[in-house]
């Protein structure tokens, strides 16, 4: 059983600050982490390896520093790691990213057939959820998004059954392998890697592929050139024209504050008063 897990290194967005004047992201000092949603994909792949044996290969496209994210994956128990890194990838949108990752996965397949490809549900920076569907379409394999459970894998018949979160319910689906699974969050819990894996991860000679190594000859398909979307403007959300009207009373007694608030609010928003009266019991 060979699974390829696509992971992305992202800035820990809880710690992202925006420069107040230039409106640029201040990345300095912001720790880079594995996209949290991708850990559910990796753990699921590791569980399948526990059950069926085989190999888990992790792949990321990113700058050289993304190596750290791959080593972390190795320490959790992934067997092999590939960093796809080339200046030519800079500015890739999701269409160009899925092109580069698909080409990489095809290269991996040349050495060892792939049964399943995993991605996270979405990232916390780009946050589009488009790369998984893009890879599946380009590989011409079946797409299973928002998978909450892998119910059964039949390696003989090359079939897989999953539960998938759909609109308004759960779908039980059966499909053929290889297929691409985007894993829903909260469906499993990442294991603690063991000590052996930790040491192996630190020493592991992970592969770094440039675009040629990833099988890409046509630079028109990647980077800014391969990206139909163009970011034309980045700006900070506009503050509301007015700050909140602060409700104060002389004594600041809670009840008096509440009375003052209601009087003000219902004078300024008479319709709201009717609305509340209508529905309140």
């Amino acid at each position, binding site marked *: 059983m060979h699974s390829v897990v696509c992971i992305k290194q992202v800035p820990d967005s809880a710690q*992202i*600050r*925006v420069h107040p004047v230039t409106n640029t*992201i201040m990345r300095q000092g912001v720790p880079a982490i594995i996209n949290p949603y991708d850990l559910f994909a990796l753990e699921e792949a590791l569980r399948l390896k526990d059950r069926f044996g085989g190999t888990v290969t992790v792949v990321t496209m990113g700058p050289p520093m993304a190596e750290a994210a791959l080593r972390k994956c190795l320490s959790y128990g992934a067997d092999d790691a590939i960093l796809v890194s080339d200046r030519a990838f800079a500015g890739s949108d*999701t*269409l160009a990213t899925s092109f580069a990752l698909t080409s990489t996965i095809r290269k991996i397949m040349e050495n060892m057939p792939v049964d399943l490809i995993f991605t996270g549900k979405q990232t*916390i*920076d780009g*946050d*589009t959820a*488009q790369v*998984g*569907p*893009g890879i*599946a*379409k380009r590989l011409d394999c079946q797409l299973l*998004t*928002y998978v909450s459970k892998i119910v059964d894998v039949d390696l003989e018949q090359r079939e897989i*059954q999953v539960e998938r979160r*759909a*609109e*308004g*319910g759960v*779908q*039980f*689906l*059966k499909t*053929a392998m290889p297929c691409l699974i985007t894993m829903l969050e909260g469906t499993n819990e990442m294991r603690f890697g063991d000590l052996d894996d930790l040491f192996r991860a630190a020493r592991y000679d992970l592969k770094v592929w440039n675009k040629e190594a990833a099988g890409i000859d046509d630079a028109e398909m990647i980077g800014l050139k391969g990206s*139909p*979307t*163009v*970011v*034309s*403007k*980045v*700006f*900070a*959300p506009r503050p*509301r024209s007015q700050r*909140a*009207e*602060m*409700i*104060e009373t002389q004594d*600041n007694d*809670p*009840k008096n*504050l*509440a009375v003052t*608030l*209601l009087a*003000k*609010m219902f004078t300024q928003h008479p319709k*709201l008063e009717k*609305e*509340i*009266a209508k*529905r*309140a*019991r």
Partner: protein
Amino acid sequence: MSEQAKKPARKKVELDPRFINYRHVWVFVESERGEVHPVSWELLGEGRKLADALGVQLCGVVMAGPGERGRGICAEAFHYGADQCYLVQDPVLTDYRNEPYTKALTDLVNTYQPEILMLGASTLGRDLAGSVATTLKTGLVADCTELVIDAESRNLASTRPTFGGSLLCTILTQRHRPQMATVRPRVMGMPEADTSRSGQIIEVPFSMLETSIITKVLEFIPDDTRDKPNLPFADIIVSGGRGLKKPENFQLVWDLAQVLGAEVGGSRPVVQAGWIELDRQVGQSGKTVRPKLYIAAGISGAIQHRVGMDGADVIIAINSDPNAPIFDFAHYGIVGNAMTILPALTEVFKSHLAQARKAG
């Protein structure tokens, strides 16, 4: 450019000749088992403005199984602003599956060539949009919060939050058609239905054999929605945050909600601590809400919370810290201890409403 040269007349932006045949604004009307996802109506409301700005038609795309009420859904789409609907009904479209839906939608786009195609950023819409955009090799902008037409170039300028809402960016798809965008439920307002409107239904045949489709739906188990909160469509929401300190104190939020007939919501930390259910989380990784009144107690107003509730008509914030960011965008603010302000509000609302009832 030389300074002496006569200032050239402002270059007119010519529409790329490849795009001349791409016309009209499309909205994918998402339905399952005859039920339309409300985000589709919100998109038609938004699409109407775009179509008017471009001077073109607004078209709905409806896909369903043969026995389902496809024409009924088209009729509703006209009420919400569509001029035309493409209707595809086929047995393989009964349950949503990526492969037949992607094929049906890309076939339609290739045949009728819209300039804009919008889908809801629901689980279905995100699954479908990414596959369709990749097949068409065109740009797809995710989770847009604002869509406007650049009058000169006829391009769609799609604005979306990024880095968890700390920044907004405007994205163009200048060199490809159609321009695709998804919008999250409740980000746009619900348009008023005009039942006097009608339009043209164009039925389009689709032939895909079930035997050629690899993924099979073995079973569908609908969610039990009986006791599920529906925050996105609640008119009044009372929310609590980490400032409430203890799970027991959340009762104060429930008490006020009870008096107001409101839903209860919360910030992510209180959901993660298990004080309230996941369905009640408001924000970037929770629900987007648009109530008439939103009361936030002990919530700091982090950007990831704000993006989920900024569309409320009136926001009341209660926070002990006068510098809490929530006061920058709430309408009314009370600086104080939520544990005493909430019960006071409950009491005062209660007596005010009792009086209002008596007055008739």
